[in-house]
C-alpha cells in the first residue's frame, strides 16, 4: 500500500459505465448494412460498389475538410461520416454517375450535418438531405433505373461520365415496381420484391436483406424498434383501408410495404436517433406520421415514391413532437 501518496484519481460517481459507445452504435448500423450491400452487388454488379465508394469518399472527405481542427479526429472516429456516405449511396440508382454520387456524399455531410454544428445537432437526416440535393440537382439521372441482374463487370454508360458533361442518356432503362404500379398498373410478384431482382435504388430492392439487418439492429438495441413498427403498421393500415375501398385503383398493403424504399427508410433512415424523437410516445407519433405520409404521397402525389419526403417532413416535426411527448415523471399525476 502506498505509504503516504494519496490515491488521487478523483471524479464523481458513478464509476461504472456500460460497454456500448456511440462509435459502436454507428458501427452496428454499418454491420447491419452488410447484407444489403452484398445484395446490391449481387443484383447490380460492380457499378453498385463504385457508387457506394464514391458517395462514402465524398462524405468522409467533407467531414475531414470542414470539421473544426480540434474536433477533426473525434468526428471521424465516431463513424457517422462513413455511415452517412454509405446510406446516401444506397439510395441512388445503380447507374448514377460516380461524380454525382460523391456530390451526394459531400452535400449530405456538408448541408445535412456540419452546417448545423456537427453530429447531434442536425434537424434532418443527413443522408436524405444529400439525396434530396441530388434529386433537385440531377432529376433525370436519379430516376434513370438500370435493370438489375446484368453481367457483374459491365458498367452502365453513365457511371464514368465526366463531371458536368452529358451523361449517356441512351442507357437501357427499366421501371421500378412503384413506377410500374403508378404508371402502368402493373404489379410485381412479392417474391421478387423480397429477394430484390427488380429495378430500384441500390439498397432498397431486397426486402429480405433489409429485414435481416433490421433484426440485428433491434437485437443489438441500436435502433428503436418502435419506429419501423409504427411506419410499417400505419402504412399497412392506411393502404389497407384504401385497398378495401377500391381494389382496382389502389395496390394492396403488402405491395405497399415491400416495394420502393419503405423498408429501407423505416429501418435505416427514420431510426437515426439524432433526427427522431427520443421519448417512446414520440417515436410512435413520428413513425405513424411517416407511414401515413408515404402512402399519401405514393397514391395521391405526382411522384411514384415518397419515403424520402415523408421522413424529412417528420424530421422537421421532431422538435415539436419531443416537446409534447415528454415522459410522465415519477410521482407526478
Amino acid at each position, binding site marked *: 500500500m502506498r505509504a503516504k501518496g494519496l*490515491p488521487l484519481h*478523483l471524479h464523481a460517481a458513478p464509476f*461504472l459505465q*456500460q460497454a456500448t*459507445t456511440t462509435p459502436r452504435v454507428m458501427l452496428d448500423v454499418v454491420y447491419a448494412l452488410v447484407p444489403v450491400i452484398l445484395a446490391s452487388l449481387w443484383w447490380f454488379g460492380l457499378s453498385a460498389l463504385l457508387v457506394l465508394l464514391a458517395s462514402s469518399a465524398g462524405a468522409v472527405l467533407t467531414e475531414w475538410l470542414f470539421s473544426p481542427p480540434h474536433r477533426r479526429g473525434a468526428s471521424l472516429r465516431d463513424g457517422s461520416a462513413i455511415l452517412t456516405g454509405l446510406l446516401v449511396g444506397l439510395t441512388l440508382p445503380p447507374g448514377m454517375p460516380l461524380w454525382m454520387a460523391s456530390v451526394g456524399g459531400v452535400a449530405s455531410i456538408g448541408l445535412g450535418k456540419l452546417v448545423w454544428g456537427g453530429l*447531434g445537432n442536425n434537424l434532418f437526416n443527413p443522408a436524405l438531405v444529400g439525396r434530396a440535393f441530388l434529386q433537385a440537382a440531377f432529376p433525370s439521372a436519379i430516376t434513370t433505373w438500370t435493370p438489375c441482374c446484368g453481367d457483374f463487370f459491365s458498367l452502365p454508360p453513365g457511371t464514368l461520365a465526366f463531371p458536368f458533361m452529358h451523361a449517356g442518356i441512351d442507357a437501357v432503362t427499366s421501371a421500378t415496381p412503384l413506377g410500374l404500379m403508378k404508371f402502368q398498373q402493373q404489379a410485381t410478384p412479392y417474391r421478387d420484391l423480397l429477394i430484390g431482382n427488380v429495378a430500384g435504388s441500390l439498397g432498397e430492392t431486397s426486402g429480405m436483406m433489409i429485414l435481416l439487418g433490421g433484426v440485428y439492429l433491434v437485437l443489438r438495441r441500436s435502433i428503436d424498434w418502435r419506429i419501423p413498427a409504427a411506419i410499417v403498421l400505419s402504412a399497412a393500415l392506411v393502404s389497407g383501408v384504401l385497398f378495401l375501398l377500391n381494389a382496382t385503383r389502389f395496390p394492396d398493403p403488402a405491395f405497399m410495404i415491400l416495394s420502393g424504399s419503405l423498408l429501407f427508410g423505416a429501418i435505416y433512415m427514420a431510426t437515426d436517433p439524432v433526427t427522431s424523437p*427520443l421519448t417512446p410516445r414520440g417515436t410512435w407519433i413520428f413513425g405513424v406520421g411517416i407511414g401515413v405520409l408515404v402512402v399519401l404521397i405514393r397514391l395521391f402525389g405526382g411522384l411514384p415514391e415518397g419515403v424520402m419526403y415523408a421522413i424529412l417532413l417528420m424530421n422537421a416535426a421532431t422538435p415539436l413532437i419531443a416537446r409534447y411527448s415528454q415522459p*410522465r*415523471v415519477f*410521482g407526478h399525476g
Partner: protein
Amino acid sequence: MNALTARPHSFRHGIHPQEHKQQTVHLPTQRMPFVSQYILPLNQHAGKAARSLVKSGERVQRGQLLAKPDGFISTALHSPVTGRVTAIAPRRHPDGRLTTAIEIEADPYATQRYAAQSMIDWRTLSRQEFVEHVQQAGLVGMGGAAFPSHVKYAFPDDRCVKHLVINGAECEPYLTCDHRLMLERPAAVLQGIEILRQQLGAERASIGVEMNKPDAIRALRDLIRPDQPIAVVPLQVKYPQGAEKILIQAMFGVEVPAGKLPIDLGMVVNNVATVAALADYFGTGMPLIERTVTVAGPGVVRPANLQVPIGTPVRDVLAWCGGLTADTKAVIMGGPMMGTPLVSLDVPILKGSTGILAFSEAEMELPTEYTCIHCGRCIEACPMSLNPSRLGRLAKVRRHQDMEKYHVMDCMECGSCTFACPSGIPIVQLVRMAKAAMRKERST
C-alpha cells in the same frame, strides 16, 4: 414458495450493471481487531451535527455518549472504544471537507468488551419514549444516506403506518454486507422488524430482497413464524432498486407522489442493517458503535466483509485487508454508483459507510465524450422517468430555470443516465453541479 420460482417484483426503467458481488459474497463477516486511533466526525448523519460532551484528555468507555443530538433532526454519537480523547479538532471527512471530529486513542490494555446492560423492555415504551431511545442510541439509516432513524418514527399522530418496508435490495454492485447480514443474523433482522412493527403499529412488514440473494431470502423465510405478518418479497435484480421511493414502486406498484414521503402512503422504509442495529440496541443496550462494511474491488488484496468500530480509519481497514495493489488509482467509500471518491485514506468509517472499494486505472478511466445522439438510452434508464438528455444539455448552458420545468429537483442522482450514455456524457455529474448552483442562487 421457492424464491426462484416466485414472480419477481420490479420498477420502471433502471439499469443492469455487472454485479461484481462474487468477490465477497461468500466471505463471512469478520470482526476487525481494534486499532490505535479512531476519528468520529460530529456530522456523520444527515441533519445538524451532534454537540460534543467530552473534553480533550478525558477517558471514555466503549459505548459512552460522546456527543448529544443538537435539535430533533440530529442524533447521538458514542465512543466505539475504551480510551482517551486526544483531540476535538477539524479532521478530514470522507466527503473531502474538514469538519470537527472527536479523536480517540484506544487504550491498549482495555479488553474492549462491551459491558452489556440490561435489556430494554421495548414493549412497555410509549412511541414517544421509543423515539427518544432511538435518538439516544444514535441510530441512522445504514444503507448509505445516514438519515437519523428516529425522525422517521416520529410521524404526527394523525398519520399511521400500515406497512413497514424493509430494504434488503442491496442493488449497488460490489456490496455484499447487507447480504451477509441477512444470511448470518436473520434473527436480529426479524427481531428489529418485530420491535419496529409493534412500536409503529404497522399491520404488516415486507422485506424486499433482490433475487441474487436466494440464500438470504430462504434464511429469513425459515425464521418467520406463521403468526408473524412478515413477508419476504423477491425483487428482480436491477439498479437503483434500493432507493426508498423506487423500492416502494417495485414492491407494491405505487408511486410516492413528488414532494411527499412514504409516510404519506402509510409506509416507513428502513434498511436491514438499521433494523438489526435497532434489535442490538434493545437487546443489549449497545448504541450504534460498529457496522458491517464490504471491502472489495480489484485493488484490494484480500477482500472482506468486516465488522468494524465506527471511526476506524480507512487506511487501517485496507491494511487489515492486505493493503492495496500497486495499480490502485482510487478508493471509494460506498457503492460504485453513488459512492464518494476519497481524497485521503486517513478518513474514518462512518455510520453510513456501506463499503470501501479500490479501483485501478482501467475502472476509473473516463470514457471519451461524444456529442449526444439522442439515442434515448438515458430516458430508458431513468427510474424517475426524467429526460436526462435534455437536463444534461440545459445544465451545460446553465439554463437552470428550464431545468426546473423538466423536474430536475425530482432527480435523486442515482447515476443510471451516466452509466447508460454511449456518448460518455457525465449527465448526472452535470445535473448535480446544476442543482448545487441552483441551491446557491436561491439562498442568496
